[in-house]
């Protein structure tokens, strides 16, 4: 038998069980339109490719994924801290260790994110329709800074007091202090553990999907592989 049992719709195979045929896919309607768009723009082979263009062989390309790895640690350690409450790490040595994990993973997150930004800048990674990818990345960077700020203010120690008392002046000077009060622990903590991490996570997912949809940008000055040697496009991007 050349085909495994059950792989052909309606084929009972040796066990007697039938694999039902999937329902016919409609292209109309909202669901059909979205499904069709995904099939065209982000088929599973693009979301999870097993091959990459050969020019990605550089260590500069690992900074993005290492940033994500650091973010995973930031979130996991943050979840544990949130579970036991904002006082826990001051009174428990295990709590202090989890806080240390959070502290250092945040340091690594910013280190690798900035290295990733440097790498993408010098590679002009925004080329060929990838400007939105770059822009989402910058927004993630800026929101991360605000998230870190609310985190430092939520520490409930001397550093948190001083940062709050001083930052309020800059925040008040632009009118933002009317609705964003660094002296209000409840507000800062709530933003830090829920709203801002949700925003970062959604944007990082979007960022990765953008990269997968467009693929890794070609090297600067690369000629189209299909063009005859020596022919370059009119103005390299």
């Amino acid at each position, binding site marked *: 038998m050349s085909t495994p049992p059950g792989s052909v719709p309606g084929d009972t195979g040796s066990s007697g069980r039938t694999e039902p045929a999937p329902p016919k896919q409609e292209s109309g309607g909202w669901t059909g339109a979205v499904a069709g768009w995904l099939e065209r723009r982000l088929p599973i082979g693009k979301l999870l490719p097993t091959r990459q*263009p050969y020019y990605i062989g550089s260590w500069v390309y690992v900074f993005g994924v290492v940033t994500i790895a650091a973010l995973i640690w930031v979130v996991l350690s943050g979840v544990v801290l949130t579970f036991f409450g904002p006082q826990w790490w001051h009174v428990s040595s295990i709590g202090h260790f989890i806080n240390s994990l959070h502290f250092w993973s945040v340091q690594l997150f910013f280190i690798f994110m900035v290295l990733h930004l440097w790498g993408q800048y010098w590679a002009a990674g925004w080329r060929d329709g990838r400007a939105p990818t770059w822009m989402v990345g*910058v927004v993630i960077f800026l929101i991360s800074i605000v998230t870190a700020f609310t985190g430092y203010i939520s520490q409930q120690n001397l*550093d948190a007091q*001083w940062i709050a*008392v*001083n930052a309020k002046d800059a925040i008040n000077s*632009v*009118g933002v202090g009317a609705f964003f009060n660094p002296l209000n622990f409840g507000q800062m903590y709530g933003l830090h553990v829920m709203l801002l991490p949700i925003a970062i996570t959604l944007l990082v997912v979007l960022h990765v999907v953008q990269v997968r949809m467009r693929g890794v940008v070609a090297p*600067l000055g690369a000629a189209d592989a299909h063009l005859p040697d020596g022919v370059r496009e009119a103005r*390299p991007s």
Partner: protein
Amino acid sequence: MSWLRPARGPDPNSFRTIRYDLLKELTVALGVVSVLVLILAGALSSPDVKPDTIQRWAQDDPVDFVTTATGELAGSSVSAQYGPPYNSGSGSVQSLGPLHPQEWAGVHQHVDSVNQFVLDPLNKAAASNATLTSALATFAAAKADQQTSWLDAYTAALANATAQDGAVVVPAGDYGPVDPMMKALLAVARSGGLDGLLLSGGGTFYQTDYTSPLLFLGDGGHLSGLAKDQMLFGNQWGVMNETGRYPGQAWLWLYTLWYQIPPYNTASNADLLVVLTMGVLSLALLLVPFIPGLRDIPRWIPIHRLIWRRFYAEERARRR
């Protein structure tokens, strides 16, 4: 083809491909970062310098405490005169030409230093204290300019005050009921009662808003003294720093750099200027792909020739 939309480069799919396992890469990255985080956390721990309290302030530096409290009662402290979002003062309001965002935003966290920081806590403390009740009644009954005259005299006297056995001793003078009031407030603060009273000032049981105690603490010199010891002051590039030997927020280097140089370092609206500057620069970073010059620097300074050197070498070999 305009300057806004340069010609497209080649499609990545048109190149030779190699096998590359993205999920394995993520797993390896996770492994490496896990080792790093666990070692750093285990070996170096994390900073946690205890917060300052009004109690500690009143015990360590009673003269500074009483001086600050007198300023709150007189309405001359930084918080009392601050302006939006706390009150209608103007002492800390910043503007730039026609831009008055701080005033436009208005008052939203009402702070009344006279009552919140001094009179309300004292009225509560007077519950079992006949002397204090009488002093408070005298103060409340006096006309505004009489109160001002007492407070001005007391403020001047505090410049020569000394601390003795936890009490503040001022030279003799006509301060009306102000001296017993301040002595009582100091006693409440030294006992630890004022920290709680300022936090739950409105009579609320549950509270997570520390605006009152933090503004009061910030008006004094004790908190800032502790911060200076930890190199957290603005002119110490404190925005970037962490307590102890820990790395701070190195990513804020450019934000704090402006505060150190002219014209920012002498401007009364330095905060507004810096935030606007960083706003413009952040916008520029966001829009790099569209800014001629800024988006061409990677071409002019060819660091990319290192990133893709194998690719360029293969291309050269292929064309020979």
